[in-house]
């Protein structure tokens, strides 16, 4: 077995692009192999992984497309290797078939998504238009974990965490970034997880275990196909129960001055930085604004959102898509009688100033 030095020793303040951050985080998380197919804006995750991995005894395989990248990631996991991939836009679309299989078979894959403009090829640049697909894509039931990051420290922290969440709960796990985060540059602190007391979950093989199944060890049925409705129903309901049980342990969120907020800005990912900036400006002007940011979009901190929203007089949902996040928010606020205003900008960035202007306009 190749034993390499720890790629990161101690804590180090560094400056780089988000894609590079993900490659370093995967190294720090003891990822064994990346399977990938190029697509902007995530390419440098691959570029840096292929530069770094040989120095640390890790591996890379470029596949012929994203369907293959998804299935080979599953294959790597089944062989007991911590495997991951990264994709975007139409690549994410192709990933949905293998990730549905990962849901059905409880395969702990990790996939980093850098959202680009959509529908289809659209732009290589930026959007938040892969929310529906990443949370509920494929022909599954959304039995997956999605962390929506807002910058480079998040990308580092949640890429590491994704491996643990995936392997602990055995659900496919996504880091949902975007093209701005992929390409922008800002400082962050890199660290060795062990030095912060974060214990990385050890991978285990699904296949190729010692002994004869049924004789030396219990038989395992690794499958994504069922004969009858009843058989399928039992299998899905078991996954659903596991998912519901794990959800309270997985959900993460952030409240920014929501306690006395009249207007609650709900935003996720990089747009939450604009929301936070808007709260700061509005508070200085004596306007009671607050911000709720779900970090996990799936599962979702429903109770915490409802708590923040029930105290507010009105709600403003802000996102770089035409209502994909809004749909989630409405779902989790069902029955709560509060007016919801929106800033919906598919494929375009949103600034704190624009949010401030909208809230002042509405008063």
């Amino acid at each position: 077995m190749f034993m390499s030095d720890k790629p990161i020793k101690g804590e180090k303040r560094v400056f780089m692009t988000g894609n590079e951050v993900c490659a370093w985080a995967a190294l720090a998380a003891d990822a064994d192999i990346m399977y990938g197919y190029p697509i902007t804006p995530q390419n440098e995750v691959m570029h840096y992984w292929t530069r770094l991995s040989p120095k640390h005894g890790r591996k890379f395989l470029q596949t012929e497309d994203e369907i293959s990248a998804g299935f080979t990631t599953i294959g790597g996991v089944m062989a007991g290797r911590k495997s991951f991939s990264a994709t975007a836009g139409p690549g994410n679309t192709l990933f949905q078939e293998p990730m549905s299989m990962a849901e059905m078979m409880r395969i702990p894959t990790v996939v980093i998504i850098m959202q680009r403009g959509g529908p289809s090829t659209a732009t290589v640049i930026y959007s938040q238009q892969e929310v529906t697909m990443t949370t509920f894509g494929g022909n599954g039931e959304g039995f997956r974990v999605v962390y929506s990051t807002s910058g480079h420290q998040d990308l580092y922290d949640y890429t590491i965490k994704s491996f643990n969440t995936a392997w602990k709960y055995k659900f496919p796990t996504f880091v949902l970034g975007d093209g701005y985060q992929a390409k922008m540059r800002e400082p962050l602190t890199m660290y060795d997880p062990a030095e912060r007391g974060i214990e990385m979950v050890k991978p285990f093989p699904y296949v190729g275990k010692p002994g004869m199944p049924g004789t030396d060890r219990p038989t395992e049925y690794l499958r994504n196909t069922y004969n009858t409705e009843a058989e399928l129903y039992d299998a899905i309901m078991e996954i659903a129960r596991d998912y519901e049980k794990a959800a309270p342990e997985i959900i993460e969120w952030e409240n920014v001055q929501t306690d006395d907020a009249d207007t609650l800005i709900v935003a996720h990912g990089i747009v939450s930085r604009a929301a936070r900036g808007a709260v700061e400006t509005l508070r200085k002007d004596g306007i009671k604004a607050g911000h709720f940011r779900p970090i996990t979009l799936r599962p979702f901190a429903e109770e915490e959102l409802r708590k923040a929203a029930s105290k507010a007089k009105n709600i403003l949902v802000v996102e770089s898509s035409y209502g994909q996040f809004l749909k989630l928010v409405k779902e989790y606020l069902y029955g709560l009688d509060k007016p919801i205003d929106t800033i919906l900008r598919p494929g375009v960035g949103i600034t704190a100033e624009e949010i401030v202007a909208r809230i002042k306009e509405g008063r």
Partner: protein
Amino acid sequence: MRIVEAFIGEYASGKSENAINRSLELLQQGREVTIVDLDTVEPFYTLRPLKKSLEQKGLRVIAWDPEETHGLGEAGSLLKQEMLWALRYSGDIIMDIGYGVHGAKIFNLIVGAETDPDLKIYAVVNITRPITGNKEDIVEYVQTLGRVDGIINNTHLGDETTKDLIEEGAEVVTAAAKELGLPVVYTAVVEDLRTQFDDCDAQGNPLKILHRFMPDAFW
């Protein structure tokens, strides 16, 4: 004497920032200056969004206008003919060679680059980027770039940059340059920290005071 300088280096090492600052410095000396954006991969986070404001300052800017790339599709990464012939402009030529390891290869496409007697190629290095974080890694990296005539210490952490950090960068970069047999062209110091320095860094390298333009190139 005509000044022709190309800034190459690791992705996000500060090539554009240094190229812009150098161009404006020459312009302020009353010289005729052309700055060329030779990032053929990225559709954004180049100096393109700054094109108009740099032109207003008096620079000749050879770069795509963001509006011009509408309709070009995926990355809009075509060479303009002015880019191919950039070395034939009169006056000084400053080239911002984008996109990390592959960026330097673009010299194949620039007419006259191989024989230009005035061309200097400078590698921009920031040691807070872990891939060029120590002497050994810098040496290894610079050796992959092909011809390099000097190294620039551009060590910084954005808004968190300190004098100590810049000096740490100067020490590491100077050691790497020595091993490579190359000069350190200068140490870049963001203008807010200028008063904390004398005329050179602790290694004796000259300083270049940088105004940060690139934060305006995003959003």
